[in-house]
């Protein structure tokens, strides 16, 4: 699989946004205005490209998790679609769309790692297919890292929503349901 990357144009726009953000964070009011303008002009474009990248990446993870089973592939695609719209909510801003894609992508990775580890822990697995202890440790580390990433992505979306709405944090209750429909 070819490495999934952003285009040079998108990277340049991100660099510009980063530079203006640094200036705005230092209290430069002109930079803040310029940042607002640039986000209006090219923010959605960068989000669109990153979302596209996320979709292709999610598909690669689905393929790995489904191991060639068409039904499992189809079920995962539907599951991700449902999650995506549920997390992004009605009429989402471009940033909410991107953060929802990030949550869905990391969720897919955590599910995949869970699946791989569960398969390793079944007693029926032939000895030749069992992971060595060091690989098992590596997978466990990856799984923990993915889980941390998932929680941080959810927090990020909640923070953006809270600050965009202008409601103080103590009165905000953001709920994102990541449970499977059967409750598992």
């Amino acid at each position: 699989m070819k490495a999934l990357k952003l285009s040079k144009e998108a990277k340049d726009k991100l660099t510009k946004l980063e530079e203006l953000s640094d200036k705005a964070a230092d209290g430069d009011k002109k930079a803040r205005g310029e940042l607002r303008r640039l986000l209006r002009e090219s923010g959605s474009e960068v989000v669109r490209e990153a979302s596209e990248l996320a979709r292709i990446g999610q598909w690669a993870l689905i393929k790995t998790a489904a191991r060639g089973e068409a039904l499992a592939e189809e079920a995962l695609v539907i599951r991700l679609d449902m999650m995506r719209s549920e997390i992004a909510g009605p009429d989402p801003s471009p940033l909410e769309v991107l953060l929802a894609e990030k949550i869905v992508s990391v969720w897919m990775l955590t599910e995949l790692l869970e699946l791989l580890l569960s398969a390793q822990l079944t007693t029926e697995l032939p000895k030749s297919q069992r992971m060595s202890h060091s690989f098992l440790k590596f997978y466990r580390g990856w799984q923990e890292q993915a889980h941390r990433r998932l929680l941080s992505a959810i927090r990020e979306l909640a923070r953006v929503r809270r600050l965009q709405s202008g409601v103080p944090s103590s009165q905000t209750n953001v709920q994102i349901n990541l449970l499977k429909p059967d409750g598992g």
Partner: protein
Amino acid sequence: MGWEKRERGGSYYTRSKWVNGRVAREYVGGGMVGQLAARWDELERHRKEEEAARWREERERLERSAGFLHALAAVAEVLTRAHLLAEGCHRHKGEWRRLREST
């Protein structure tokens, strides 16, 4: 692991192993016993190499599949920060807060 020549003639098959943090040599035997042990060790080494290569490949495949997450995380981080700053928020001791409107 290997064959060692003895002063009074003939060869002896030996194995090296770690004992209390030091390499210790274990003398297995010569003749047919040595030959069998050497063959067994060779097969075992081959099996371990194949197994390591298989898991390395699996690990690389997974890393490639999840590689897009780094780019996605970077874009999300830059855009989130830019949006919050543009909306009039600022970071105070690691926490994002809304700037007070100046009157």
